[in-house]
């Protein structure tokens, strides 16, 4: 009846950021429910997983190691996770809302016939009273997520089925280490008890994965552009300013869809959630889907031609003007200060 987190492995053989974030959240939920936090690690040649995981307060690590298990492929990971869950009966199971987690978690939920909520932005513990039967459920996982293009926020519960499963995007939960007195245990799984030859019917022919280069999540300053920037070329003005002030470039979904910026720069409900100390929004109208990914920034400057753009209602400063004209002026002012 514990809390399980499926840990993703990066190309470099480390535990993925999103998994560490989920462990941090999982630790808090486990404390609240007075249960253990357990991690599932499936891969090959993993160095020092204890060292990587224990700072996050993990009580137990289930470790399946085999050369067949890296890189990730659906069926073997599915077989291990679903059988392990059948044995250990977790009450909560969390996965990253990544290309791996969103491939694996639904298949596991289908096998275990349990509920799964995708792309949660908050997880809380709470109770529920069934209005028809009057049944009282305590200690349920509230799975909170945006729906309908981000215009509403739904709280989802799974009253009857276990585990209560959820996926969460990278950058939504805070990564936090804890001091944890209890010694954690690593349980090595006998891989051959969990997988069979049938799990390897999909043959990997080519695999080209780039190491992660862009990391806007931890940037202290973000210069972000929307569709209003007009073109990919104009985005270079954002890059110039960001480079000068030690920041990163972010973008809205519309700008990413239009090809102005890489997908990894996307901020908002379907991208990354950021909390920098300074957020400069250039040519961004402020759709709900974007604002909910950056509204916790400590200081927001909006540069927009439209004085009524909805982003201005959450901005500390609003510069009325075309970002393509304002950005060079800002750059000039900063350079003059630095001299």
């Amino acid at each position: 009846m514990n809390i399980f987190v499926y840990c993703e492995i990066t190309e470099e053989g480390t535990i993925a950021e999103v998994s560490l974030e989920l462990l941090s959240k999982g630790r808090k939920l486990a404390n609240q429910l007075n249960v253990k936090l357990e991690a599932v690690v499936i891969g090959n040649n993993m160095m020092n997983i204890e060292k990587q995981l224990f700072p996050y307060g993990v009580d137990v690590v289930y470790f399946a190691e085999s050369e067949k298990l890296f890189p990730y492929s659906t069926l073997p990971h599915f077989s291990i996770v679903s059988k392990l869950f059948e044995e250990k009966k977790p009450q909560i199971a969390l996965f990253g809302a990544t290309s791996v987690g969103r491939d694996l978690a639904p298949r596991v939920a289908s096998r275990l016939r349990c509920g799964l909520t995708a792309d949660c932005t908050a997880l809380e513990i709470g109770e529920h009273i069934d209005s028809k039967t009057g049944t009282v459920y305590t200690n349920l996982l509230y799975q909170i997520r945006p729906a309908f293009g981000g215009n509403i926020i739904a709280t989802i519960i799974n009253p009857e089925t276990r585990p209560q499963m959820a996926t969460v995007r990278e950058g939504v939960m805070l990564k936090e280490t804890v001091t944890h007195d209890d010694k954690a245990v690593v349980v090595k799984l006998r891989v051959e008890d969990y997988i069979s030859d049938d799990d390897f019917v999909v043959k990997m022919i080519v695999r080209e994965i780039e190491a992660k280069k862009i990391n806007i999540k931890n940037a202290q300053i973000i210069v972000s552009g929307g569709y209003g920037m007009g073109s990919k070329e104009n985005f270079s003005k954002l890059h110039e300013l960001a480079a000068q002030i030690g920041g990163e470039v972010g973008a809205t979904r519309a700008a990413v869809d239009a090809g102005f910026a890489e997908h990894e720069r996307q901020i908002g409900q379907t991208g990354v959630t950021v909390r920098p100390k300074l957020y400069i929004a250039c040519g961004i109208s402020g759709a709900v889907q974007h604002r909910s990914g950056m509204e916790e920034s400590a200081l927001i400057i909006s540069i927009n031609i439209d004085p009524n753009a909805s982003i201005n209602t959450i901005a500390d400063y609003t510069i009325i003007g075309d970002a393509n004209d304002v950005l060079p002026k800002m750059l000039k002012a900063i350079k003059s200060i630095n001299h």
Partner: protein
Amino acid sequence: MIKIVVLIKQVPDTRNIGKDAMKSDGTVNRAELPAIFNPEDLNALEVALSIKDIVPNVEVTAITMGPVRAAEVLREALYRGADQAVLVTDRKFAGADTLATSHTLSLAIKKIGNVDLVIGGRQAIDGDTAQVGPQIAEKLNIPQITYAEEIVEVSENKIRIKRRLERGIEVVEVLFPCLITVHSSAAPCRFKNAKRVMKYKKACTISELQDDKKESDTDNNLIIEEWNAADLEAYPDSLGLAGSPTKVKKIDNVVLLQKESRIITSSEKEIQSLIQELSKEHIL
């Protein structure tokens, strides 16, 4: 013969939500939203039709679960090149979450029988869950290839697919049967074919006929198959709201913070004083 089933969903166009679409209590007024062919399901239909172009003897069946009105997207699929269409509809299916939906659709796919490829969009824009595809694959006990971008090679019994991942690509190969979910970066769907529109515009379901909404050309067998819970021999407990482990506890309108904003003009002088202020406060 290769049998392909394409999974389609009719969805409210959540990308263009206007003010009228939100009710005062913060819930969505679905009636105010135009219903469209889910965008990635169009990419999925194109993948199926492109296989039909390459390999002889391919039959493409479009299938959707939804209200009677969802037959609209089935006709659209016929106009674009699908060979036949099935509407899975019943009040008992209402309120289904992804698990109950995948159960119902997997029963329909089993009823079609001997299906080699099941192809659907990665996700629907009303829920953005991307769960139904993998869940159907599990229920059918077949492998799943998610986020397909391109068919690299296909023959009578196997397929090689390029997948689009967060930071790269994979090419994988698998024997039939399997389930494929298609990413928006895949080729767009071909347009409606004028001859096919002429041929299929009268195609309709039994329910549409009974509602007298359509005049059907029954002589030419232009009936869109319509299956209900009984046709699928489904247990009522596994359908719709009853078969859904997830329940919606509550819905909130999105409330965003508002604060007083200081307005600055784009003059060089004002921008300079702002930068100086930020620098003094060590923000820059």
